[in-house]
């Protein structure tokens, strides 16, 4: 039953992610005074890339290089589908929030390793950068999620968080801990989505798209899909853990939740990425150790204080 549902959810989350990418590109363009590409441009890109030749660099570790985009996108889509299933209430596995975040982490890591296996020195530099970025933002992200779902929803599950919020309203609006955790999570989202200012791993002018440098054709299509699904899944997770609004019927609530995800992503990914310059690698770790970490720990502290 669950397997079937996940299968149904997969295309849904993939479509929604690509669609958000289209919105992102359009809004970005308009903020820069450009017309921008059509909303469905990411779909065109995906199809076009799929139709291209598969090129594998001679110096690459062939097996890793060719399979990791597929695996990575599969993992990201699985994470997204699990989240959807949790939202719909049909998945009630304890700890699925942690599972989702871990799947996203593994998906990013896989892609980096796959790219680095191409043998390109830029990809190697990018892998080194990527690992340090990954560890710096995943920690506050995980803490903020735990702080959020540990509150009234024991066992860290999406379904639990949703049920709690259906009773007492959006977490971020009803508790200090929730608001702090959301702020911390939003600051981590640009790193999850690998966009400016934290796109040091794939910065085109610095490391020539980093680990993506050698990927092309179908591999690139899948790699981009993995990225875009991770990006949107993170936003959807934030929206469902912190801003799930009781509106009476579940379908309406789900739609509102998806809309909330888009709005959150527009703020923390699209707008932020337009307004500021890229930071340096060293600055990424420094940044996440400060503000987001403090916010996340603050959320945890507020939660514990509220309890006792």
């Amino acid at each position, binding site marked *: 039953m669950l397997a079937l549902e996940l299968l149904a959810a997969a295309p849904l989350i993939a479509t929604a992610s690509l669609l958000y990418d289209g919105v992102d590109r359009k809004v970005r363009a308009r903020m820069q005074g450009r*017309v921008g590409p059509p909303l469905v441009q990411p779909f065109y890109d995906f199809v076009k890339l799929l139709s291209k030749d598969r090129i594998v660099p001679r110096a690459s570790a062939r097996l890793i290089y060719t399979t990791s985009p597929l695996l990575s996108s599969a993992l990201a889509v699985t994470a997204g589908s699990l989240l959807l299933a949790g939202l719909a209430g049909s998945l009630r596995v304890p700890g699925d929030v942690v599972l989702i975040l871990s799947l996203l982490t593994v998906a990013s890591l896989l892609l980096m390793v796959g790219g680095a296996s191409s043998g390109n020195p830029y990809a190697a530099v990018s892998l080194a950068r990527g690992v340090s970025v990954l560890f710096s933002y995943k920690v506050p992200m995980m803490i903020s999620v735990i702080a959020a779902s540990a509150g009234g929803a024991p066992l860290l599950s999406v379904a639990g968080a949703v049920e709690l919020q259906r009773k007492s309203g959006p977490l971020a609006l009803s508790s200090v801990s929730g608001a702090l955790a959301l702020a911390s999570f939003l600051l981590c989202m640009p790193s999850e989505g690998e966009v400016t200012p934290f796109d040091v791993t794939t910065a085109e002018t610095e490391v020539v798209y980093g680990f993506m440098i050698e990927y092309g054709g179908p591999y690139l299509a899948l790699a981009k899909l993995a990225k875009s699904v991770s990006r949107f899944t993170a936003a959807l997770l934030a929206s469902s853990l912190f801003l799930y609004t009781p509106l009476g019927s579940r379908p309406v609530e789900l739609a509102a939740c998806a809309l909330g995800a888009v709005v959150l992503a527009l703020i923390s990914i699209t707008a932020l990425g337009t*307004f500021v310059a890229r930071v340096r690698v060293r600055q990424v770790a420094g940044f996440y150790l400060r503000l987001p970490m403090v916010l996340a720990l603050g959320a945890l502290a507020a939660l514990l204080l509220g309890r006792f």
Partner: protein
Amino acid sequence: MGIGKIMKDAATRLFRKPSTIGYPLKPERVEVPDSYRGAIDFDPKLCVGCMLCVRFCPSGAITVADKRRIAFDLARCIYCGQCAEVCPRKAIKLTKEFELIYESIESFKQQ
């Protein structure tokens, strides 16, 4: 000091008409000024075969057939307008035509 100094400009841009246009998919066109130096319009009837244009064309885009009949190779032309400037009979004009897109260099040359 401060962060996001460009925020206001970018946020207001969002609601204004974009500066770019959907060219060439949308039938919008930017007008070029009258002094634009585009495709060459040559009137052989006016030409007296003085060869001044050939002498001054920097790119060798003007070829001479027998009997001092001249022809233009637009694929070589750099649209500098020197030929129109030196022509004593005003037989050469540079038009406002800039969409010089052809499928092959041969079809371009035949223009």
